[in-house]
């Protein structure tokens, strides 16, 4: 009897102490066959999340979009970029996650899995490179390793080029390889290295409709945040600057939002033309530059898809601004501009044209009329803005860069005081000026407070912008 009693107690106690972690620990994961495919897919997912943060944050900072409601950042529109702002921290978490995941993949996961293929390695190197490109383009500086020293944008871009070289070498000649080559051109562009940028842009240009996108998955919680803010949420949180109204929305859903999450483009053929054109204009070979841009209109943008979309439930007003024009009105890019039509759409009047890849209102005639470097630079940057709308590129064109965040600074001794200050060029108007406009209801004219492309050209010697000029 005593034995039964003791045995019962022992059974109860030992059994009750037995606890299973329902999750997977890293030592269980690494070294297992098939780990690579899940890690590479995880990197794709991470890239999607990274692009969410990049697109949403930088589009708000830029003159493209402003936040009309209370969700998402309320200060990036000013633009106010504080090192202690959680959104500032979130952006680097997402960029650094991509980099660390790529490194963990290269060091731990891929070597431990016999099913790893060259294409897997190439994609991981690409992910690493892309993290470094974002680090270089979006930040004044960012550590290049866990708790490591803060690398300059130049250092990041050089690391990106090195990783892209590895990725390119692992792939046969295909679209994916071409995309990596164009990314190399972009990295050289950001470095201000026109020779190499043009060299690789020319290679990529051969594939003029090149398109590399990141995919979203609404049923698994990886929604395209920009799509949510532009279209899918009940109240559309973000509103475009009225002169860019015709380009909105780039992302939309039909049917159920969760099952229709549009991809975000990270590499497209247009960029090869834009890089080549900018090098030509910077070098004052204006005719060549003009021709490249005209080719871009006819050879690329003209063949990009345009879909007819019912956007009648667009709710521009009811948030922070209540004077957004809801009918087709004329616009002036700034007070000194002449009126232009077809920039603001009447969305209740029927379907609208949605440019899912690229759209622009810059015409060949306007290009022909531009005969000075400034005139062409102005149109080039307008085209860059319109083509890259809602893709997270405009902030870099404006010369704005994020600082290292407070969380990083507090846990990383390598972060210096200079690293925690955002770069906002002196010519950037503050107090929400970039997003500001007035609406003359009586005459049906919306006037932007600033034409930022004009401001850029007026400040073309500023070191933060125009990498081929400065």
């Amino acid at each position, binding site marked *: 009897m005593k034995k039964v009693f003791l045995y019962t107690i022992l*059974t109860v106690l030992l*059994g009750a102490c037995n606890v299973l972690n329902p999750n997977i620990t890293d030592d269980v994961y690494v070294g297992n066959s098939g780990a690579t495919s899940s890690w590479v897919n995880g990197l794709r997912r991470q890239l999607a999340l990274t692009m969410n943060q990049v697109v949403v944050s930088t589009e708000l900072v830029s003159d493209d979009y402003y936040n009309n409601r209370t969700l998402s950042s309320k200060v990036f529109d000013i633009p106010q970029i504080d090192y202690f702002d959680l959104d500032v921290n979130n952006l680097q978490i997402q960029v650094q996650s991509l980099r660390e995941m790529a490194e963990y993949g290269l060091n731990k996961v891929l070597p431990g899995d016999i099913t790893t293929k060259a294409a897997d390695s190439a994609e991981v190197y690409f992910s690493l490179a892309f993290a470094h490109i974002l680090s270089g383009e979006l930040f004044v500086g960012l550590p290049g390793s866990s708790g490591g020293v803060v690398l300059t944008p130049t250092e990041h871009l050089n690391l990106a080029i090195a990783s892209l070289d590895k990725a390119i070498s692992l792939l046969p000649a295909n679209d994916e390889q071409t995309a990596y080559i164009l990314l190399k051109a972009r990295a050289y562009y950001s470095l201000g290295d026109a020779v190499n940028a043009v060299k690789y842009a020319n290679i990529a240009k051969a594939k003029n409709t090149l398109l590399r996108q990141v995919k979203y998955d609404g049923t698994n919680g990886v929604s395209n945040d920009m799509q949510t803010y532009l279209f899918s949420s009940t109240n559309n949180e973000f509103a475009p600057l009225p002169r860019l109204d015709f380009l909105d929305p780039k992302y939309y859903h039909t049917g159920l939002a969760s099952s229709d999450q549009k991809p975000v483009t990270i590499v497209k053929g247009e960029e090869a033309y834009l890089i080549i054109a900018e090098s030509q204009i910077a070098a004052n070979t204006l005719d060549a530059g003009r021709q490249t841009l005209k080719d871009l209109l006819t050879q690329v943008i003209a063949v990009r898809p345009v879909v007819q979309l019912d956007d009648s439930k667009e709710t521009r007003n009811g948030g922070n601004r209540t004077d957004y024009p809801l009918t087709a009105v004329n616009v002036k890019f700034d007070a000194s501009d002449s009126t232009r039509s077809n920039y603001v759409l009447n969305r209740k009047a029927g379907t609208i044209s949605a440019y899912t890849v690229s759209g622009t209102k810059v015409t060949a005639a306007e290009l022909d009329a531009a005969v000075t470097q400034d005139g062409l630079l102005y149109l080039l940057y307008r085209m860059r803005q319109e083509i890259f709308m809602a893709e997270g590129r405009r902030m870099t064109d404006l010369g704005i860069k994020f600082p290292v965040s407070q969380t990083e600074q507090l846990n990383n001794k390598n972060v210096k005081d200079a690293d925690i200050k955002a770069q906002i060029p002196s010519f950037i108007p503050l107090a929400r000026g970039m997003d500001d406009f007035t609406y003359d209801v009586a005459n049906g004219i919306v006037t932007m407070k600033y034409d930022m492309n004009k401001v850029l050209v007026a400040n073309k010697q500023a070191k933060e912008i125009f990498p081929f000029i400065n």
Partner: protein
Amino acid sequence: MHKIFSGYYNLFKKLFSLKMRITSFFLLFSSVLSFAASGSGQSMNEIKVSLHIKDRPLKEVLNLVEQQSSFIIGYNRDNIPDSNRISYSADNRSVARVLNELLSAYPVMISQVNEKYILINKLQQPVVLTGKVTDKTTGEALPGVSISIKGTSSGTATNVEGKFSLRLPQDREEGILVVYFLGYKRQEIPVNRNTSALNIALVVDRMGLDEVVVTGQGLDISKRRLSTNVVSIGTKELDQAPSGRLDQMLQGKLPNAQIRLTGGQAGATSIIRARGVNSAFVNSTPIIYVDGVRMDNLNTASKLGGGSTQGAAVSAIADIPLDNIEKIEYINGGAATTMYGSDAANGVIQIFTKKGGADRTDITVETQMGVETPTADFLHFKRTKDLLFQNGFYQKQHLALNGGKDNFGYSFSGNYSNSKGVQIFNQNSNRRIDFSSGFRAGLGKKVVYESSFTYVNNNYKRNRNGNQGGYTGLWFAESGASSITGPKFSPVIDTLSEASYAKMKAYVSQAERLQDNNIAVNRFQTSQVFKYTPMKNLVFKATGGIDYRVQKNQVITTNQYLSFTTNTTVTDQGSVSNADRKYLGITLELNGQYEAKAGDFSFVTTAGGQLFRNEDQQILYVGSNIRDGSRIITNAATKTSDEYFLQVVNYGMYLQENIGFKNKLFLDMGIRGDGNPAFGKNIGIQYYPKVGISYVPSAEPWFDAVANVLSSAKVRGGFGVAGNLPTAFANQRTIAFSGYQNGQAAYFGQPGNANLKPEKTQTAEGAVDLGFLHDRILLSAGYYHSTTHNALFYVPATPSSGQSQSQLYNVGRILNRGYEFNFVAVPVQTKNITLRVNASVNTLYNKVLSSGGVAPFNINGFSARTIQTVVQEGYSIGFLRGNKGVFGADGTLASTTAQQDLGKTIPDLFGSFGLNFRYKNFELYANGDYQKGAYANSFDRQFRFNYGAGNEGIPQAEIDKNKRTNWLNFTNMFTEKTDFLKVRTIGCSYTLKGALLNNKVKSVTIGFMAVNPLNFASSSFDPEATISGAAQGQGGATTGGISYATYSSPRQWLGSFKINF
């Protein structure tokens, strides 16, 4: 692939499904039982003898039986004289039969004591002790008084008339009758078989020195011996409180703890804290036990379960069984909770349920009915009340049975309550049904078995609160969001024309009506206790029990609702979202206590082991694009689901020694060791020591000289350690997975920490308890100083590490210190009149001494640019942090500085007060509490400014210049002091006794109670309704501090009618 906690990887694992565990658990107790019963190796019923005797002395015959059977037979010669001679013949008959036949002529009882001994005792007539227990001062009969015979399993309780009857065990000539009732001095009365009807008058024990407590001690011990304080609340006091939920019931009743309900919606969470906030990681809610069984005490949002729980979570405390309570004990952390180990730094509340009453069955029927009215004191717009609120009807029906006979007692209670709630369309209605039963039985002479079972069914509705986005009633009406919602209105709703207001009212009415959020809880709880008293001074207790709670949280969002509230046509966004949470907690505890005396010294040694295991499973299943009318997700176009699973297991052993000298000086020492798989692999068993001294000068002979003034006194001091457990599995580094593009996607999960251990709060405390003028005035004054070492902080991931999840590290150090005063006075006490007043004052100083270099992090609030409550070195936990704006002479914003300290959310002074007045059978009572020195932000005001619903004190010049764009740049302008004084209950009752009612019924009580009648606050908003949603998630620390679209607790005006049969 599962990762198994290696220390317990054994063959039992496979065998050990949950069912098996429960079966084994009951086996354990049956084993305890059988252990206590006599052995069965050799029975006098089985052993056979043969005898052929003629006219021999009986003694000789018994010797023969002994020789043949190897039994030893004991008897008293007085009962069987030597001279008796007998003739008898038997072949191969059992010893039992032979003895019975031999002794048939004598009044004796034959019993086998163990394998060897048989005893022959004189058979005695059963003696029943009867009596009546009254209050010595008032002469009032005391029901529910515990009556027992020391060292036996015999026990009962007095009935409504104060009467009892109890059988003296047959084998006893005499015994000691122990009479004990909470709030009275314990009496021990020697009784014997000739004792006639007893009239026992109990003396009120205000100081409670000889009160017996259990919580924190393992087994019964008198307060005199303790160096820490234990607060006990008895039935009488509990009857004078709203009976809705435990925390509400205790509001204003615990002198040194503060309880604030953070919202007025059914099931709202509460903030309960005593000695400050000792953790930046775990919620300050005490651990709650019912009859020794640990309850689910989740008082924050759960991990999964969005919808109506977002920001205004569902509290598991709202459905802890409340009826049938005999008493509640509360200990507030420090040395008092050391014996609870890793789990109890925030204190322990223990509920003891009724286990039976007197001989006759007492039946109590009570009906409580009344009106609930909205607390509109803090509404900004006059019309809000009309827009969103209604008067509700409340009723509660209660039936209780108590009874017993000798060693058996039983108790049953059934309740039905229904509240329509104060929000229109009954969107906050609450219906609750519960049943509970308790049993006590003596099993044999040495074992007492006690059990309790409770079932609670709680259903309530909740309309959307401020954190859900889209239309929410209070945000719409009070925060100015009406200007951007639906058809859009002017947000200054008091100035709307009648026509516009009618339109708004119609809109709100429809928007509220179309909401459909339900929470249903089913909870089953049981406790099984065996007490075994092998010797008078030794007692063993085995406790086991289960708390099983299932919560379903359903949010139905129809296309009609979305279309209506957004003023658009929505046809494909209807959804049904279900969040189920299942909690299973198992508690097992085995302990023993030995009392010894040596000269002037007395020793109480307690040792035991405790194990608890919780499983928390949460499942979220959502159907989207579902047609209006569907209440299950089966009909949805898209279905998604998620799961969360947590297992917590903690095992601890403890040893406690209490040494007394001459009943006046006591040394209390103890240690507990805990193991837990949540500790990192580099961490072993964690130890929690305590030591304390209690000195009772009033037991000194010289004290008589001052006794006329200072009637009793106790000085106590101690040091103890208690802990908070880290989250289960938080030590392990994990890889996380989810689906992505039809494949498996892996990424970094939890960073992991091999050095994770519990945070430990070390408390040093000292106090004096003084009673003046025959204890008519009681004063307790104390000081505590507690430091939490290795405080657990959720350290945000360093971005460059690539991790995105915060990880728990033991990096912080937190200080709490304060004075605790409690004052009770009974200025009048005569046969007909009693007046009693009480008040408590507590100071509190809280500071994060060190954050170990970790970046400040928020525990509540919104984004860093708006308002957050933050943990930061050098500040008090949960201080308000936001943008501080300074206005220039011209009235426009001159500068704004981000991340500034805008005030602390923890008060530096708090306390409670109460009053009881009795005139004959009429009683009047009131209680309340207060706080001072804390701040909170009104995000409602901030929104009101933003949406132009008010200027909120912002200079006109600023509005003229910058409009309202700077609304987030001077958050300090919306932060207010939250000093308050709230009267929680005022009530009265009148009791008619049996004699007045021709003895058809024993008594009738008519009562009236006002709940939350009076609020006085320095803030423009309800200082209590400050959302407690912990940013750190389930069970996270929170201090409130942000008032935003939250309902205040309603008022209740209740009448009650109670009959005892």
